[in-house]
């Protein structure tokens, strides 16, 4: 189904989308530019909450709440602990980013990447509507597919997570000094 720009403007869901997308982008921008390391990580919460809200808006409710629980609940705390433990400068600090000699080429690269991909997407998918009658995905439907069709990848991911956490503990723990015999 194809929608023109005028039709697009009459749809209320698109204003909800804009209200969610703008904080998401502003939060992401603050993550990469803030001079305060704790604030940069806390702005990541805004970006991830925005993406979770977009998932719920698309009907992917289980994924949305998983983002809230795993990312906002656990990963952000891990980041904050990482900041505290590496004794990063907690106040405003210019040394967190490279000087303009790196920033300008990086900004050019990002803008070129965005322009090329956004042009390609608009060219290929411009105006193609998401079916409006799409309902919420029930968690039971997801579970049926995960535990039947995707059960092997699921088990592999659980092993990856286990070995990563064991490896993390092994890397981060302090070795006890050997006791003199």
């Amino acid at each position, binding site marked *: 189904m194809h929608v023109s720009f005028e039709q697009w403007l009459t749809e209320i869901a698109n204003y909800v989308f804009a209200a969610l997308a703008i904080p998401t982008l502003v939060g992401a921008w603050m993550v990469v530019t803030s001079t305060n390391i704790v604030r940069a990580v806390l702005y990541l919460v805004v970006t991830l909450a925005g993406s979770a809200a977009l998932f719920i808006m698309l009907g992917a409710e289980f994924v949305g709440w998983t983002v809230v629980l795993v990312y906002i609940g656990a990963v952000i705390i891990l980041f904050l602990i*990482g900041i505290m433990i590496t004794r990063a400068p907690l106040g405003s600090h210019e040394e967190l980013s490279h000087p303009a000699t790196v920033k300008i080429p990086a900004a050019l690269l990002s803008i070129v990447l965005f322009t090329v991909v956004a042009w390609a997407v608009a060219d290929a998918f411009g105006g193609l509507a998401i079916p409006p009658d799409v309902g919420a995905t029930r968690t039971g439907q997801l579970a049926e597919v995960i535990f039947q069709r995707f059960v092997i990848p699921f088990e592999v991911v659980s092993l990856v997570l286990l070995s990563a956490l064991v490896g993390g503990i092994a890397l981060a723990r302090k070795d006890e000094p050997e006791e003199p015999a």
Partner: protein
Amino acid sequence: MTIAQFVILGTALFSIGLYGVITRRNAVLVLASVEVMLAAVNINLVAFDVYLADQLYAGQIFTLFIIAVAAAEVGIGLAIVLMIFRNRHDADVDELDLMRY
């Protein structure tokens, strides 16, 4: 809602994350920028999953896998940053040039 608006939002988030990975000096903030890029990919996957009305929900399930792998990545990444900090008393990625020829 069109599919393009979600994919272009994902592209913008990905570009911002790329900018952060290149310009940040603190290793913890490089990891945070990578998380922004992963969020962009997740938005893409879920948007296409809903657009295609996939019977296997492959986009949503891959998003769940990405979330699990990202949690593992942050856990092990921060352990490595912590170990580097313990040895060098610094978390600046520019100082890590031991393996340069």
